[in-house]
């Protein structure tokens, strides 16, 4: 039998993961404002505008607002999130990794 060796584990320390609840969903989108949020990555503007077109064509009772984020997608954008919270009811964001 080969000699037994004791070695260190090379991994670092992971953070503790604390559960976060999802926001409550809406009963209906009718008459509600949905922000279509463009994270400005790899032609996402074309895709998000197609999402907006779909709502216009299939659910015209939904008001949509196309909203590009205020910076590159790697940066948090609290001003935009606050605007959506105050003026919107829901959000669709893309296109992300």
């Amino acid at each position, binding site marked *: 039998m080969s000699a037994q*060796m*004791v070695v260190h584990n090379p991994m670092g320390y992971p*953070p503790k993961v604390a559960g976060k609840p999802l926001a409550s969903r809406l009963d209906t989108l009718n008459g509600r404002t949905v922000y279509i949020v463009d994270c400005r990555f790899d032609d996402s503007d074309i895709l998000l505008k197609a999402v907006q077109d779909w709502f216009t064509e299939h659910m015209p009772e939904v008001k949509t607002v196309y909203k590009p984020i205020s910076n590159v997608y790697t940066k948090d954008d609290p001003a935009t999130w606050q605007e959506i919270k105050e003026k919107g009811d829901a959000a669709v964001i893309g296109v992300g990794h």
Partner: protein
Amino acid sequence: MSIDLKYGVPTVCLHTSMFTTVTQSVVRMNGVPRMRQVYLPHPVMGKTPAEIRAYVFGVSPVSGRPVMQEVVEGLTQSLNDEDRKGLSFVRSTPRLCEPASEADLQQLFLDNNWTDKLPIVLPTEDRVAAMLKHTSRKPDEVVGHHAATHFREVWQCTVEQVAVNAVMAGARPEYFPVILAIASTGVSARGSSTSSMAAMAVVNGPIRKEIGMNAGTGAMAPYNQANAAIGRAFGLLSQNLQGGSVPGDTYMGSMGNALAYASPTFAENEERSPWEPLHVQRGFKAEQSVVSVFMGCRAMAFTLGLRHAHWQDHVRNMMRGMDPSESPLFLLDPIVARLFMDVGGLKDKKAIIDWVVENARMPAGEYWDYQLIQNYKYPRATFGEEPLASKLRAAPDELIPMWTADEVNIAVVGGETNGYWRIVGARLAGTACIDDWR
């Protein structure tokens, strides 16, 4: 995720199918069992508006259901108990592995993705203890934090954990302060960018000679133990101290990058350079030992010498071959450093950098059409950040600078066997004083 989890707005996230595993992994690590995520075909980039419309109006390649039906349901379908509670868990990292034979441990490290797929030096307690003797820092002291990308969870590492990875890389104990300094920058040599980045490290100051680093012939090649082992340690500590680097999950580099095997690490040839060293340019004293960490290493241009008649044209051609989103790092053999002075009339690094900023230009229309410029600079320009905002106001055929002075770096390296030189697309991502980690 912030809009939904922090601001309380019901949100659906759109991703492409290539990112199914990674995006679901990211939300779990953020305490959410199941974000409302909808997957479209991949890729989006380069597709026509008609093709992208077909994505949105079509079915998801992941679920086989209509994309927009999933979007609407994601905003309106009731949450279950799990959604309301979230996902909480604690993971631990055992200090030691279960005892096993050498062969079984090599296989364990390989199977757990703890290596660069080459054999490693097993980090026995004795070897790690020997490494720890070359720093005054305590083994349990926190060195820094690492993450595979900005949106992934951030892991923490201690001096001992860095030592473990240094042993694995084949580092001699006297290299340890350099490796600790690199770890302290928090820069990951195993970034998950789809662009397939690699890291590079330049060492300045007295420690270069103390530990026998190479700044001369073959400095960036596998001919010096310190250069090689420190670079390998940079890679291994990055992947293990950030929680992994696994293709499809924590690593998404599409092509990969062979430079990531080495994370090329070398000393600047201060003795043969006619100019002040890189770390002195950055405000350190010449007698301090410092490591500068660069990220990118995707693009590279090279040539031989500087010709009297057309050197400016040749260098402009090299620079125009770079993606303008890349910051250029000029790696000059000492022969070339002197040519920039004698042929180019540029007397120091600052003069070269000023010349680069003035001469690396392209039409504004071309500049703004680069995909990476669109992704990372155009958004900043539209919200007024200078000098990007001014560049955005330029007419399409106006020649605008590709780079600003603070994006350009120069290091002198090489053994003067000839006057070859390179421009590497690599941004300065971190600098740390090695003396702080002795």
